[in-house]
C-alpha cells in the first residue's frame, strides 16, 4: 500500500466517474452503492496505509511515493508524488472516516432530492480532491487538490442551482477563494524563485539554511496565510462561508465544517518551519485567528437560521485553530481540527436531521420542544454542544484548552500572547452561550411551527442516526487522544512531534503546569457561565428573550443580526469600484483595442484574397509557378 498511495484518492475518483457518466440512468441503489464503496475504499486503504506506515517508520519520517515526474524545466520541477507522515495520517483518518460517515448519512438525507446521482458524484470528487490535498508532497500538488476541493465546494453550494440564492452563494465562495488562491500562488512563485523548490521537505530544508532573507520567509508565510484565510474563512475573507450554507446540509458538515475549511490550518501546520522562522507571520496568524474567533462568535449570538449559527460557529472555531498554529502550538491546532471535525460534523448532521424532521424549516424561532420528538438527534446534538462549549472531559475541552494555554505561554510574543488568550477566552464564553441558546430554542419550550410540520415530525432513518451516534461518541471521548501533560500522556502531541523539527535559536513552546491548571479552571468556569446564561434566558422564555434584548438595545441587535454590515461594506468599497473599473475597460479601452484588431484582420483578409489570385486552377500555371520556384531557389543559392 505504501508504494501505491495513489490508490487512495483514485478510489473515490472512480466513483465520481461512474456516477458522473452513468448515474443519471442508473438507479438510486446503484448510485449509493458506488458512492459508498468509493469513500469506504478510500477509508479502508488509508487505514491500511497508516498501519503499514506505523509498522515501518518509528520516528515519524516522511514516506515519499513518487508516481511521476510532472515537469522539469531548467532548475525548477515538480513531481506527482504522495507522502505519508504523522500529520498527513491524522488528516487522512479524519477526512476518510468522517467523509465515509457523511456519505452514509447523505443517502438518507438526500433520498428524495432531484439530482441524487449528481450529488454523490460531486461528493466523491470532493473526497478525491481532498485526499490529494492532504497526501500531496509539494505545495504545487497540494494546490491541485486545493483547487479541486474549491471546485467541488462551488458545485455543491450551488447544488440547488435553480435557486438564485444558492447560485450566487456558490459564485461568492469561488470568487472569494480566488483572492486567497492568488496569495497561495504568489507564495509558490516566491518558493520557486528563491528556494528553488515547492517540495515540502526541500522548502523547509532550504529555509533553514543560511543566507535566506528573513523578509522573504515572512513574505512567503503571509502570502500562504492569505490562501489559508480564503479557504479557512478567516478575516477578511470569511464572508463566503455563512452563505455557503445554501448547499445541502451534509455538504455543510463535510466540506464547510469538518474537512475542506480546515485545509488552511493543515497548510500552516505543514509549513511550521517557515512560520517559526518568522515570528511576525506567526503573530499575524494568531491575531487574525483570535479576532475571527471573537468576531464570528458575537455574530452567532443573534442568528436565527440553525445552519447560520453553526456556520459562524465554524468560522469562530477555525479562528481558534489559527490561534493554535499561530502561537506555535501546531499539534494543538491540529488537535482542535480533529475534535472540531467530530463535534461540528455531528452538529451539522444533527441540524440536518432537525431540518429533515421539520420538513425543511431552518428557522429556530419556529422550532422548539423537539426533545421528545426526535430523541436520538436531540441527545447526539446535546453531546456535541457540550463538546464545543468546552466542558471536561468532552473532546472540545482538551483541544481548546491546549490552544488557550499555549497562547498564554507562547515564547514568540509573550505580551501579545496574553491578549490573544483573553480574546480567546471571551470567544469561548460566547461559544458556550450561542450554542446553548441554539440548543434550548430548538429542543425546549413549546413547539412554534405550523400544525402540518408538527404532524410530520419524525426521527430520521438509521442511515442518518447511525452516523450521528458515531460522531457523538467521538465528540465525547475523542479528546482523550490529546489530554494535557498534567494528566499524563499527550498521545497526539507526541505522534505529531516529528513534523516539528527543532530549529537553532528558536525556543519551542512549553506550557508550565500551573498555567495549565489555571487555564483549565477558567475555561470550565467560562463555559459554565455561558451555559447558565443561555439556560436562564432561553429554556423557559424561548424567543421572548431575544425580543426583550432587541427592545433594550435595538442598535446593537440589528448590527449583530446584519453581521456588522460587512457584506454591505465590501459591496461598497470593493465590488462596486471594481464593476465601475471593468465597465470603463470594457466600454472605452476595449473598443480601442478592438478597433486595432479589426484593422489588422482587415489587412490579413485582404492579403488572403490576393493569394487567391494565384490559385487559378490551371495546371499550366501551376507548373509555371513550380519552375519559377526552382529558378528562384537557384538564384538565391548562386
Amino acid at each position: 500500500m505504501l508504494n501505491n498511495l495513489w490508490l487512495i484518492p483514485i478510489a473515490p475518483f472512480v466513483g465520481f466517474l461512474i456516477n458522473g457518466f452513468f448515474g443519471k440512468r442508473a438507479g438510486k441503489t446503484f448510485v449509493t452503492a458506488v458512492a459508498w464503496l468509493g469513500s469506504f475504499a478510500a477509508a479502508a486503504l488509508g487505514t491500511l496505509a497508516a498501519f503499514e506506515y506505523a509498522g515501518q517508520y518509528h520516528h515519524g519520517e516522511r514516506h515519499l511515493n513518487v508516481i511521476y515526474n510532472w515537469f522539469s524545466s531548467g532548475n525548477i520541477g515538480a513531481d506527482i508524488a504522495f507522502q505519508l507522515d504523522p500529520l498527513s495520517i491524522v488528516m487522512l483518518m479524519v477526512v476518510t472516516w468522517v467523509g465515509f460517515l457523511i456519505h452514509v448519512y447523505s443517502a438518507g438525507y438526500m433520498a428524495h432530492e432531484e439530482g441524487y446521482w449528481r450529488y454523490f458524484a460531486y461528493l466523491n470528487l470532493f473526497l478525491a480532491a481532498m485526499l490529494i490535498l492532504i497526501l500531496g508532497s509539494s505545495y504545487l500538488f497540494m494546490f491541485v487538490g486545493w483547487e479541486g476541493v474549491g471546485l467541488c465546494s462551488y458545485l455543491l453550494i450551488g447544488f440547488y442551482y435553480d435557486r438564485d440564492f444558492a447560485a450566487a452563494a456558490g459564485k461568492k465562495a469561488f470568487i472569494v477563494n480566488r483572492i486567497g488562491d492568488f496569495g497561495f500562488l504568489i507564495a509558490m512563485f516566491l518558493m520557486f524563485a528563491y528556494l528553488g523548490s515547492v517540495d515540502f521537505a526541500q522548502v523547509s530544508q532550504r529555509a533553514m539554511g543560511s543566507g535566506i532573507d528573513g523578509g522573504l520567509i515572512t513574505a512567503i508565510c503571509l502570502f500562504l496565510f492569505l490562501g489559508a484565510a480564503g479557504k479557512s474563512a478567516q478575516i477578511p475573507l470569511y464572508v463566503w462561508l455563512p452563505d455557503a450554507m445554501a448547499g445541502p446540509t451534509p455538504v455543510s458538515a463535510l466540506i464547510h465544517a469538518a474537512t475542506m475549511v480546515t485545509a488552511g490550518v493543515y497548510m500552516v501546520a505543514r509549513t511550521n518551519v517557515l512560520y517559526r522562522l518568522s515570528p511576525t507571520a506567526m503573530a499575524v496568524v494568531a491575531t487574525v485567528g483570535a479576532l475571527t474567533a471573537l468576531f464570528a462568535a458575537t455574530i452567532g449570538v443573534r442568528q436565527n437560521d440553525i445552519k447560520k449559527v453553526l456556520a459562524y460557529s465554524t468560522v469562530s472555531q477555525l479562528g481558534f485553530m489559527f490561534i493554535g498554529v499561530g502561537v506555535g502550538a501546531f499539534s494543538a491546532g491540529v488537535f482542535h481540527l480533529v475534535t472540531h471535525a467530530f463535534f461540528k460534523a455531528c452538529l451539522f448532521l444533527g441540524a440536518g436531521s432537525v431540518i429533515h424532521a421539520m420538513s425543511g424549516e431552518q428557522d429556530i424561532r419556529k422550532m422548539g420542544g423537539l426533545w421528545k420528538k426526535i430523541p436520538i438527534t436531540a441527545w447526539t446534538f446535546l453531546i456535541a454542544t457540550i463538546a464545543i462549549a468546552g466542558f471536561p472531559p468532552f473532546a472540545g475541552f482538551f483541544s481548546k484548552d491546549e490552544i488557550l494555554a499555549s497562547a498564554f505561554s507562547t515564547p514568540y510574543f509573550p505580551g501579545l500572547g496574553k491578549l490573544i488568550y483573553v480574546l480567546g477566552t471571551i470567544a469561548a464564553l460566547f461559544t458556550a452561550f450561542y450554542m446553548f441558546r441554539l440548543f434550548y430554542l430548538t429542543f425546549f419550550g413549546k413547539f412554534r411551527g405550523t400544525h402540518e410540520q408538527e404532524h410530520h415530525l419524525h426521527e430520521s432513518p438509521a442511515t442518518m442516526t447511525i452516523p450521528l451516534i458515531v460522531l457523538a461518541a467521538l465528540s465525547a471521548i475523542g479528546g482523550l487522544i490529546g489530554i494535557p501533560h498534567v494528566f499524563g500522556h499527550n498521545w497526539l502531541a507526541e505522534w505529531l512531534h516529528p513534523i516539528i523539527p527543532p530549529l537553532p535559536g528558536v525556543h519551542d513552546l512549553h506550557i508550565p503546569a500551573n498555567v495549565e491548571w489555571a487555564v483549565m479552571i477558567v475555561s470550565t468556569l467560562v463555559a459554565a457561565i455561558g451555559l447558565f446564561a443561555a439556560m436562564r434566558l432561553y429554556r423557559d422564555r424561548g424567543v421572548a428573550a431575544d425580543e426583550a434584548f432587541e427592545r433594550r438595545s435595538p442598535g446593537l441587535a440589528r448590527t449583530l443580526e446584519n453581521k456588522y454590515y460587512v457584506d454591505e461594506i465590501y459591496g461598497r468599497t470593493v465590488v462596486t469600484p471594481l464593476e465601475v473599473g471593468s465597465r470603463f475597460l470594457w466600454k472605452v479601452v476595449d473598443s480601442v483595442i478592438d478597433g486595432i484588431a479589426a484593422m489588422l484582420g482587415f489587412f490579413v483578409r485582404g492579403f488572403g484574397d490576393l493569394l487567391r489570385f494565384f490559385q487559378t486552377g490551371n495546371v499550366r500555371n501551376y507548373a509555371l509557378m513550380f519552375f519559377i520556384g526552382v529558378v528562384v531557389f537557384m538564384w538565391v543559392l548562386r
Partner: protein
Amino acid sequence: MTWSDTVFLLPEIILTLGASALLFVPLIGERGAGRSAKWWTLVILGITAASVIVSSNAVVGMTQTATFAAMFALDSFAIFFKLLFLFAIAMVVLMSEDFLRESRYSPWEYYSLLAFALCGMMFMVSGVHLISIYVGLELMSLSSYILAGYYKNEQKSTEAAMKYFILGAVSSAILLYGISLIYGVCGSLNLADIDRAMSTMITNDALMVGIMLLGAGLCFKIAAVPFHVWTPDVYEGAPTPITAFLSTASKAAAFSIFARIFYSGLHHFQLDWSSVLATVSALSMIVGNLAAITQNNLKRMLAYSSIAHAGYALLGIISLNAMGIRGVLLYTLVYVLANLGIWAVILMLRRHEYAGEQVDDFDGLYRRAPFWAFAMVVFLLSLGGIPPTAGFIGKYFLFAAAVQSGFGWLAIIAVLMSAVSMFYYLRIVVAMYLKEGAAAEVSASGSLRFVAAVCLAATLFLGVLPRPLIDQVTYSSRRLLVRALQADGGR
C-alpha cells in the same frame, strides 16, 4: 546478401503479398461481400505491424545496420515512422467504409491501393540510398494518383487526379535530375557515401543545383510554398477519406525522408541550404495561414493549413539539432493524430453524398453531437498548438529548435502565424457552438467514432503526459542525429 537479410524486408514482403491478395480476391468470387474487405485489410495491417516488431527485434542482434547493398536500413527512426504509417492507414481504412458503400466502387481495389501506398511509404522511410527512397516514393505517389481519382464519375475527382499526376510527374523529374547531379558529384547515391564525399568538399555549383532540385522535389511532396499550388485543388477534389490519407500518412512519409536525407546525407552544406529552406518555411507559414482565412470550403481550408504545417515542420529540419529532429518526429505524430480526428468528424457530417465540406456544415453541431463537437475543438486546438493538447508539445520543440540554432526570426514568424491560424480554426468552433443550423446531418458510424475517439484520447493524453513520447522520439532520432553531429563536429 544472404537469406537472413530478408528479415529486414519482412514487413514489406508481407504487405506486398497481402496487397496483391486483396486485388485477387474479387476475381475468385468474393465480389458481393464488400464488407469483409475492410476486415481483411485490417488483418493484413495488423500482421504487418507485428512483423515490424518481430523483424526489428531480430535486427537488433545483427552486426550490419543496412542490407541489400546498403540500400535499406531498419533502424529506430524507420520503425517509428513505419508504425505511424500503419496506424494512419488503419485509421484511413476505417474512415473509408461509408464512402465506399455509397460510391459503389470496388472496395478491394481501393484497399489494395492503400496497402501498396503504405508499402511504398514503409520502403522509403527505410531507404538509405537515394534510389531506394525514390522507388518507394513513386510507389506511394502512383497509388495516390489513382486514389485521388477514385470518384470516377465525379468531374472534380478526376480533375484532381489529373492535376496531381501531372504535377507529380514534373516534381519527380526535378527530383531525379537533382539526384543525378548529386551522383555526378559524389559518385554514390548511398547517403553515408554522399556524406563522406561531401565532408571533403568546399563548395560546388553542380552539387548546389543538385541539392536544390532535390529539395524542390521534396518540397512538392510536403506541399511547401512555392510548390504547394496543387494542394488545395487535389484535397478538394479527392474523396474525403483519400484527402485524409494525403494530408496525414502521405505527408508524414514525405517528412520522414526529408529529415533522413537532410540530416544524414546533406548536413555538411547546412549553411547553404538552410537559408533557402528557411525562406520556404517562412513563405509556407505565411501563405498557408493567410490563404486559409479566406476559405469557406473546409477541405481547401485544411489544405492551406497543411501547407502552413509543412512550414512549421521544416523548422525542425533547418535547425539541424537534437531539438529539431525530435520536433519533426513529435510534430508529425501529433499533426497526424489531430488531422485524422478532424477528418473523422468531417466524415460524420453528410450533406447529400458529399461529406461536410463547408464551414457552415458545422453550424450548431454542439447541439446535435456535443461530444464530437468537443472532440473537434480539441483537434483544432492541437493544430493551433494550444496546451494541454499534444500540438503544443510538438510546436514547442520545433520553435525551441529554431531559436537554438539561430533562427529566432523564423520562430517569431511561426508564433505570429500560429496566432493567425487560430482565427480560422476558431471559426469552426464558433460555427459549432454559437451558430444555429442543421445543414448537414450527423451520421457517426462505429468506425468513425472509433477513429475520432482514439485520436482524441491520444491528443489529450500526449498533451498532458508527453514524457513517454518524448523519450521515444529521443531514442528514435538518436542515430540520425549522431551521424549529423559527429560529422559536423569540426564546425
